């Protein structure tokens, strides 16, 4: 006859229950916390990050990484330079999180940092900001070519990738202040007031820049219509 030494079921059950939170914490790290943080506003995330919650920063980063990257890319023109500005901006957010005031939208604060970092960079490098980025190909020829093609009929042009590329080229060709205002609206979805806050100018100036940008973009895409 063999004796089986087994702890009582109540005891093992109690231990398992006590260790369950720890097991969940180790197996699925912070999933609930991340889900909870994702529902917070930008200002609340920033407040949490200031208190040491790294998930809050990850949520903010996920929300704005692509938008800010495209903004710096269109602003700088070169990918390497855009990456440096992009990194500088996020490091400024990390190191200057205490300076954020919730009375301004986080997006306006973020794009404002990017605006100043880019200007500082060009000042240090001792050259002017790229006023208009050279297109990779002859945009006029491309537009004429595509416009003549039956593939690019007017009823299909809105979903057309080539039209989108032409628009991106046209945005790159805008003068810097107009390009910046357009990008802050397109990427950051900022209001006129927020763009004015970020660029340190007035609402009327921003409105005027956006109107000129719209006019030039419309002219650039005239052949597609």
């Amino acid at each position, binding site marked *: 006859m063999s004796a089986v030494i087994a702890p009582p079921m109540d005891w093992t059950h109690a231990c398992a229950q006590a260790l369950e939170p720890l097991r969940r914490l180790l197996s699925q790290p912070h999933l609930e916390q991340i889900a909870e943080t994702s529902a917070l506003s930008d200002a609340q995330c920033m407040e949490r*990050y*200031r*208190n*040491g*919650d*790294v998930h809050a*920063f*990850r949520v903010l*980063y996920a929300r704005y*990484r*692509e938008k800010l*990257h*495209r903004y710096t*890319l269109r602003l700088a023109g070169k990918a390497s330079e855009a*990456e440096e500005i*992009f*990194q500088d901006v*996020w*490091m400024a957010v*990390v*190191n200057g*999180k205490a300076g954020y005031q919730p009375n301004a939208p986080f997006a306006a604060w973020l794009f404002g940092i990017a605006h100043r970092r880019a200007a500082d960079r060009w000042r240090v490098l001792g050259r002017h900001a790229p006023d208009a980025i050279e297109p990779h190909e002859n945009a006029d020829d491309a537009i004429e070519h595509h416009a003549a093609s039956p593939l690019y009929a007017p009823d299909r042009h*809105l*979903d057309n*990738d080539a*039209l*989108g*590329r032409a*628009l*991106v080229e046209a*945005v790159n060709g805008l003068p810097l202040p107009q390009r910046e205002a357009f990008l802050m*609206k*397109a*990427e950051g979805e900022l209001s006129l007031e927020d763009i004015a806050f970020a660029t340190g100018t007035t609402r009327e100036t921003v409105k005027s820049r*956006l*109107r000129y940008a*719209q006019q030039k*973009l*419309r002219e650039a895409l005239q052949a597609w219509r």
Partner: protein
Amino acid sequence: MAMNDDMDELLRLYRHASNEAPAARLDARILGAADRAASMRRWSRRIAWPAAIAASLLLWTMWPAPGHRSPLTTDPMAAHDAGRVRSELQQMDVTPPRNDVDRFLLSTNLHPQPETGNAL
């Protein structure tokens, strides 16, 4: 209204066409720096109360107890004068006068208040 519609169409078209994303190594670098900053913040918050309590305990143990404090006499001459006055007072004859005349003289005010003339 047409201007706004036109701008909305441009924005929609631009957002549809613009889809670049940063490189993964950039993400890793930035998120790593953010993690380090947040963990330092958490560490400093956790250590703040224990450090304050430890500092208070240290001050409490290092501070001299009231019974061991030195006398407040800081001036040596003042201590000397206080000792001299104490010895003079101890040598004074404080026995009551024996005869009536001495008792009368000691109890009489030798410097009466002058008459002011204001008494009613």
